């Protein structure tokens, strides 16, 4: 693809950011320069990274970086929009002498910092990882790392909002399960690399089952679902045997059925999913408000800043998709989904071009990680599937998620540098 075309695409993305941040600037009550600064930093980061990639790593995929940045930009725009809202609400609360005024937030700025870290990580991976397939040798390290991260939450975790998947270290919180996913993919890739018969599947099966168990115990059902999705996908790629997939699905249904009977919180989730309006005051409050926001947005939304995300729970993280849809409409929501799919496609394409199994499996693993997460959370907030507490990659506020996603994309980008089919 010609150099000119790439630059044109980059400029289009810059244009999008310009319009978005200008809009933010105008809707502020006070004329703060923060949106302009945010935009400036983003431009700098993107230009610098683009330059490095173009100069030294021409062979790699050109779209992955662009699309990931575009999605991150959308995220930062909306996170700052929420900051504006929260500042306004805080001031209103102060005026009304409310005992506990709503907090001022800094989602936008924080996400920008995480973006910078993520992109740096992305570049570092591309630069230092010369011979990716060498990494397949460290299977047992990955195994250990996966287990450690998985159980970190169970033993050291703090329960937030019903799920125990956060660990606080020196005042900063991170999600071990996100890191666990990274190592799980690496482990599965190295284990399935040498796949020949079903005997090779025993060890990975055990690890996956243990991990899933930890997830269910931690009530992090979303991550469990994604883990499962990634494992099944990688299994199919490695073995090409449909019957394994079938077996896995059957086991999944059996497992779900048993957990449904055993665990009240799972029954509650299903109940909320099936009849959200019946429990709208209590249990299904989050989903109901989410659906209302989605409906209010309509096709074109109400305009950036004119929606009412204050009624939506976790509007900066899990439910950011409906925050966006209320402001800019379903059309924007669709655009985001399309972009995620194109990103997924390009990542899978890297897998197609990879020359060795290990690289291929890793690429598939990370690609499906991103795609599955998107499907599960967007499905959850629109009540297409039961709600789970996971984030929308790249867009939701959250350092762990953003950094991990850029790490995965960096690896995929590296793999995509391989030769032709």
């Amino acid at each position: 693809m010609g150099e000119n075309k790439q630059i044109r695409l980059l400029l289009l993305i810059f244009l999008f950011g310009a319009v978005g941040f200008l809009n933010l600037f105008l809707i502020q009550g006070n004329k703060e320069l923060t949106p302009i600064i945010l935009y400036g930093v983003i431009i700098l980061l993107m230009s610098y990274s683009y330059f490095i990639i173009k100069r030294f790593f021409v062979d790699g995929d050109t779209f992955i970086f662009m699309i990931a940045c575009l999605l991150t930009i959308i995220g930062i725009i909306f996170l700052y929009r929420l900051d504006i809202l929260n500042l306004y609400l805080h001031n209103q609360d102060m005026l009304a002498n409310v005992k506990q005024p709503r907090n001022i937030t800094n989602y936008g700025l924080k996400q920008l910092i995480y973006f910078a870290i993520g992109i740096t990580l992305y570049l570092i991976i591309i630069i230092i990882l010369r011979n990716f397939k060498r990494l397949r040798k460290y299977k047992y390290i990955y195994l250990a790392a996966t287990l450690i991260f998985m159980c970190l939450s169970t033993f050291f975790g703090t329960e937030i909002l019903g799920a125990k998947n956060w660990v606080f270290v020196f005042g900063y919180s991170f999600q071990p399960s996100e890191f666990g996913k990274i190592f799980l993919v690496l482990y599965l890739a190295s284990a399935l690399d040498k796949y020949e018969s079903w005997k090779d599947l025993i060890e990975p099966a055990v690890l996956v089952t243990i991990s899933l168990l930890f997830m269910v115990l931690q009530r992090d059902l979303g991550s469990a679902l994604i883990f499962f999705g990634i494992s099944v996908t990688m299994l199919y790629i490695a073995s090409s045997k449909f019957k394994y997939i079938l077996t896995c699905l059957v086991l999944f249904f059996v497992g779900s059925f048993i957990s449904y009977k055993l665990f009240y919180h799972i029954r509650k989730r299903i109940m909320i999913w099936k009849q959200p309006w019946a429990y709208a005051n209590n249990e299904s409050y989050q989903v109901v408000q989410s659906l209302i926001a989605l409906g209010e947005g309509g096709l074109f939304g109400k305009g950036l800043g004119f929606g009412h995300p204050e009624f939506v729970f976790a509007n900066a993280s899990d439910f950011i998709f409906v925050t966006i849809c209320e402001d800019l409409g379903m059309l924007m929501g669709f655009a985001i989904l399309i972009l995620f799919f194109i990103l997924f496609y390009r990542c899978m394409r890297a897998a197609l071009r990879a020359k060795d199994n290990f690289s291929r499996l890793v690429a598939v693993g990370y690609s499906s990680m991103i795609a599955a997460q998107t499907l599960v959370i967007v499905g959850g907030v629109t009540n297409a599937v039961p709600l789970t507490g996971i984030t929308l990659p790249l867009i939701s506020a959250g350092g762990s998620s953003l950094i991990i996603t850029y790490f995965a994309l960096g690896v995929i980008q590296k793999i995509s540098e391989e030769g032709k089919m």
Partner: protein
Amino acid sequence: MDLKNNIKKVLIIYLLLFLMLFSYIGYFEVFKAKEAVESSFNSRLWVKRAEVLRGTIYDRNMTPISISKKINDTKAVRDYRGTQYTAQVLGYIDEKYGITGLEKKYDNVLSEEQLDVKETITNLVEGKNKKGHSIVTTLDMNLQKKCYDLIGDNKGAAICINPKTGEILAMVSKPSFDPNSLRKDWKSLLENEDSPLLNRATNGLYPPGSTFKTVTLVSALTNISNVENQTFKDSGKLKFNEKEWIENYNGAAFGSIKLNKAFYKSSNVVFGGLGLTLKDQLYATSESFYFNKTITSNDIDIKKSQFPKAKAAEPGNLAQSAIGQGTVLATPMEMAIIAAAVANDGVIMEPYLVSKILKSDNSLYKNITSQQLGTAMTKDISDKVKKYMREVVLYGTGRSANIKGLDICGKTGTADFKKNGKDMPPHSWFIGFAPYNNPNIAVAVIIEEGGRNSEKAASIASKIINSYER
């Protein structure tokens, strides 16, 4: 090659999943979105409301009764200064518990000021906050309070109307509640068997008892020629068959009397007999007083009062209906309208509560004029009924309502009723107007389970009138 095909298959599966998600969202948007947005869990409507400073409700003397104050850009608090006096008639507006009463009827007006283009732009440029229209009611807060206090610990209602215009001067329902502490009291309000949230004046249906004889009187004067000169025989009992009859109060027998005495003594025998004579004509008269019909009003919702269509073979029912018992049911508002019609030469005026709509700077936006609803009788007849009603207060059962210098006219009523098959203390009614020459106020008072002698309602009504006239 094998692996590549796998990858392509996986791509297609994920594509399908994405497409399914797309369709689901599309389906939601087309079919389910409206329902979601209009559900009562959508707080956005309330945010929109809060952007405007809701208009004030004033009484006729420009005393503010319900007034809002903004505590920040998105929140306002409504001060119901009328507290329990005007709770039902004015209503309340609450995010959780809804909008009732006049607040509901005039919600659009109170929520948003109608501005022309010039005013709109001026407001925007000068950064003036949005306000709604204010409304001036026909209520007299002093009178309203007096009615409320006079009803005391009883349950019941009182209505005062200007018979010439239909303006509602006071409308009280007891037991009542304080809308200012609605949230706190809600549970106990709902569980209270006496239904304090109910506006008894417009929604309470009671047997009118002897006050209904006013209608029967009108019907007799209209339909029976020379009934005034007729002599009736009141032996104390009106028998239909071996088992059923009508008695006078205390078993009194008035002997041979003329119509006016039968009226001011409240003879069940005579009026029951009139019912038998009038048959369907009484039904027609009651309907001209808006029984079985909706009394239209822009400002209040009045429940339909009921007068039964009698089947020929049931003399018992005809007689009972003529004395306001049986299955006859009336709202206090209906009874007030009957009194008002008599006072207004037979013309029924549409009752209304709001006389002016104001702009946010309290200048006049719109005047509301009174409307006629219909005619229930001719002036000749109304003159006669007026005289008879004066006699009730002077010589008859309404003497406890007589106050020197006030020329009060009225009709008492004691309405029998049963609850769960058990006889209860009857309701005490009084309807009337004053002064006899050129009446300016018509009232209806009901004290639930007030007792046999109807003194309660009568004396209360007279004190109300006294307070108004002096």
